[in-house]
Each structure stands twice: as C-alpha cells, then as structure tokens.
C-alpha cells in the first residue's frame, strides 16, 4: 500500500505544469464553444 502511494506521488510529481495549463485551456475551449454555440440534436428535450 505504501509503495503504491509512493508510486502515485511519483507519478503526480512527473505531471508537468504545462500539461495542467494545456488541460485547462482545452476545458475552457470546450466550455467556450458549448457556451456560445447553439446547435440542437434533440437529445436534451424538455417535456
């Protein structure tokens, strides 16, 4: 268990700050296009 936690911590430390920034940028772009776009496929119909 301790080894697994150490492994997890080691993996987390390897995550580059730029990767986190890239992740947030991509999430932001998805939110942006979903927010300003208004296509409709009928999937979220309110009845």
């Amino acid at each position, binding site marked *: 268990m301790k080894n697994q936690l150490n492994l997890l911590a080691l993996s987390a430390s390897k995550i580059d700050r730029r990767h986190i920034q890239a992740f947030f940028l991509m999430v*932001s772009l998805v939110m942006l*296009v979903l927010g300003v*776009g208004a296509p409709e496929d009928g*999937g979220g119909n309110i009845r």
Partner: protein
Amino acid sequence: MVLLPAILAGLLAGMARARSFGRPYQLPELRFLWLVFIAFLPQFAILYLPGLRRQIPDSWSAILLSASQLILLGFAWLNRTRPGMGILFAGAALNFTIMAANRGFMPISPRTAGRLDPDLDVPPGSRFGLKDILLPPEATRFEWLADRFLPPAWFPYQVAFSAGDVLIALGVFVLLAHQDASTRNST
C-alpha cells in the same frame, strides 16, 4: 455536440502543421481564461443539471443564458487578436443577436425540429432541447440566423445548426490549427 469535432479537427490539423515545421505543437495563448469558467457555470446549471433545469422558469433561464453569452463574448473580444478568435467572436455575436431577439433562446422551426424528433408534439413557443425554442419562421426575428440548417436526411446523425454555429466551429478550428511559422525549426 457538433462543435466538439471542430476542436478535435483543429487539434489534429495543428499537430500535423507543427510536425511539418519540425517542432512541438503549441496551444494558443489565451488571456482571461477564468472568465470562461465563470460564464459557463450558470449555463451548466440551467442546461445540464436536469433537476435544476426543471425548477428554473424559462424567463430566468433566458436571462442567465444571455448573461453567460455576454461574458463569453467579452472573453472572445479580449482575445480577438488570436488567429480564428475573430471568426469565433462573429459567430458568437450572431447567435447572441438572434437569441436575444427571440426570448433568449435559439429559434427552431417546427419543421426543422420534426426532423430531429419525428414524434414531436409540443406547441409553438415551447422550449426544445437545450437552448432552442420552437417558433414558426414567420414569428422568428432574424430567421436566417436560426437553427435552420440540417445535414442530408441520409446522414446518421441529425443536428440543426445556425450560421453562427458554423462560424464558431470554423473559428475554433483555425485557433487550434494555427501554428506560428516564424519560429520554424527553432527547437
């Protein structure tokens, strides 16, 4: 969901372009990203959380949707110098214009909506889907900006989209596909 493939296509095109330049792919640098998170929050609540969506009156949903879109427009404007962002801004402005002029929602004609849901049986003026409102063309302001375009009937995925949506998809594609050639072979 038709806009998400534009993001994926832009990413792939940008990666291919960066590869042809012999350097790593670079995402666009955007300022004020926090604005997007703040702006999208109310939309997420009123559109994507079914429990909350049913409780909030349409009038409030329209106000929150418009406010959210205004902030997103501001974000696009603040980043308008980025390649593609001007196109995206234009598309967002078109969508905002027609939605603001039609009770805060994107109009869709009963005929177009019928293609998406053949069993559709709701009166005009009812909400349809996430952001749309059923309105006959003659009762729609700026009808040419509405969700009036459809793929061919044989296409397996049917979706109605507006002229603004096309510009938004094109804008985000250009934004992600653009790689600055001036730094070619700089690494």
